[in-house]
């Protein structure tokens, strides 16, 4: 793609090589440390994984049995969270990017509020969720309370990353659409959002990762119950809370904590693969219609 020009002076070439080495080292060491962490999880957790572990009831506080109900609760919490956070976050980002001038007072207040929200400690979200959703709104310790609390927490990631995707769109798209006589809504629906979809999916995957890995915000909201959930109004323990309890509170819980963490990683991998698959199909679809 970029051709390191043969004519370039030797110093530039040396700088180029230095960047390549530094960047490569940075990438490689990052992945190596993570590889170490994941390898530890595999080493300790894999022997405990089985079909029964994935589908079974939690027994003796998690030391034996499986994580079936916990998995179901986790997915329900995630669904609640995304159902609220995705429309809210994308709506907010679209408004910021397409309907107000960048740097205007309204835009700065809203971005400031969102950035500030990002820096609220997760445990404060937990306390807030417990008071506001569980008590004030009367939802109790429930999957719904947990999902809503998580939605507040991942909202800034969604807004920021979607905004990035929209701002990265080619500058000539908007005047082009306007020249064709499209209204803003139509431009948005038919041009901007479809083109920005890959970026928006990145935003959602980042949010999903953050939501699935969160413990502190859920401990006080969706709770601790390991029953099979049969409504969103019931308490259900999330996988991350289960991992925390096993690792920090239950004697001899570590092996199953590692196994559960491994399951969580695979779950995130599956969600990411689905998102990437969708993005690729979508990009192909786009280039198919435009060419």
């Amino acid at each position: 793609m970029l051709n390191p020009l043969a004519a370039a002076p030797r110093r530039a070439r040396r700088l180029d090589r230095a960047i390549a080495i530094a960047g490569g080292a940075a990438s490689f060491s990052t992945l190596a440390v993570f590889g170490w962490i994941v390898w530890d999880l595999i080493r300790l957790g894999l022997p405990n994984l089985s079909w029964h572990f994935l589908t079974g009831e939690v027994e003796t506080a998690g030391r034996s049995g499986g994580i079936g109900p916990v998995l179901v609760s986790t997915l329900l919490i995630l669904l609640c969270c995304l159902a609220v956070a995705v429309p809210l976050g994308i709506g907010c980002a679209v408004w910021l990017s397409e309907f107000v001038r960048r740097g205007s007072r309204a835009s700065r207040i809203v971005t400031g509020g969102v950035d500030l929200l990002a820096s609220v400690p997760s445990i404060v979200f937990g306390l807030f969720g417990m008071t506001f959703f569980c008590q004030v709104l009367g939802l109790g310790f429930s999957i719904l309370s947990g999902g809503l609390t998580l939605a507040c927490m991942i909202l800034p990631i969604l807004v920021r990353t979607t905004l990035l995707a929209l701002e990265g769109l080619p500058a000539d798209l908007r005047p082009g659409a306007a020249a064709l006589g499209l209204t803003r809504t139509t431009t948005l629906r038919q041009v901007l959002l479809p083109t920005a979809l890959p970026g928006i999916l990145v935003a959602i995957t980042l949010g999903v990762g953050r939501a699935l890995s969160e413990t502190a915000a859920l401990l006080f909201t969706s709770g601790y119950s390991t029953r099979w959930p049969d409504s969103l109004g019931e308490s259900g323990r999330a996988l991350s809370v289960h991992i925390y309890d096993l690792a920090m509170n239950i004697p001899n819980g570590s092996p199953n904590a590692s196994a559960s963490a491994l399951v969580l990683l695979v779950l995130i991998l599956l969600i990411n693969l689905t998102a990437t698959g969708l993005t690729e199909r979508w990009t192909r679809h786009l280039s198919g219609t435009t060419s």
Partner: protein
Amino acid sequence: MSRSRTDRFVQWSLGGLAVLSGGLVLLIVVFLLLGAWPTIQSGLLSHLLTDETWRPGSDRDPQFGLLPMLAASFLVTALSIGIAAPFGVAGAVFDRFYLPPGFRRWNHRLLELLAGVPSVVFGFWGLTVLVPAINRLHPPGQSLLAASLVLSLMILPTVALTSQAALRAVPESETLAAAGLGLGRARTIFSIALPAAKSGIGGGILLAVARAIGETMAVVMVCGNIAEFPSSLFDPVRPVTSTIALEMGYASADHKALLYTAGLILVLAVAALVGWLAFRGSKNVPASG
């Protein structure tokens, strides 16, 4: 239905969503303020700023000093960003300009996966691997250094992924034009790509700063939780969030109000920081544009 009416409807409803998103933080601040009210009323507030350490449970000599913990929060955050930002950005440059496209997808996918590793796992790993290693250098192992390293690992995927997205958003036409002008790859990166991606990378780092200040469960396991100003990298520290996590479930009424106050002050301090960064950012925009 006229087109402009649809436009206006969309504009207003999106505006509503935006106001809701931006206003949520106010709701949280009000909630913290209500929780902190007993402390404010009882005049303990000045203790928070003047006491030397944090010992609210002591009968003989209770101490409510918040400053060492605020300092710890900011130190840990600054150090972890100092580690994660160069690694993340360098990794992203490598990914965009040097890595063959076939590998790029895998790099991306791995980083996304890492963004989802639960904080407990990092804490666990930090406590069983990193802390004993640091302990061999300088006891007790639980330290400012350990907390910063664990935290920098946790925020690295965020920095790397947002930087990658920002670099990818730089139009290829511009980088190709630079190459066509005979600028080497290195010059293209420093003079074209990085400046163009600056705001995106900055936004990512801001997200990472926020995440670092707010992170709780991993840090609490490796920081040592001693509420004093550290004098070296190997001293244990106690960030504000650790205190809330350690004590909230175990605090009686007055103690709880103190913890809410600590949370409130942390959020306000971060607000000041974010406001300052945004102010600087808005000053920079016209200068560079």
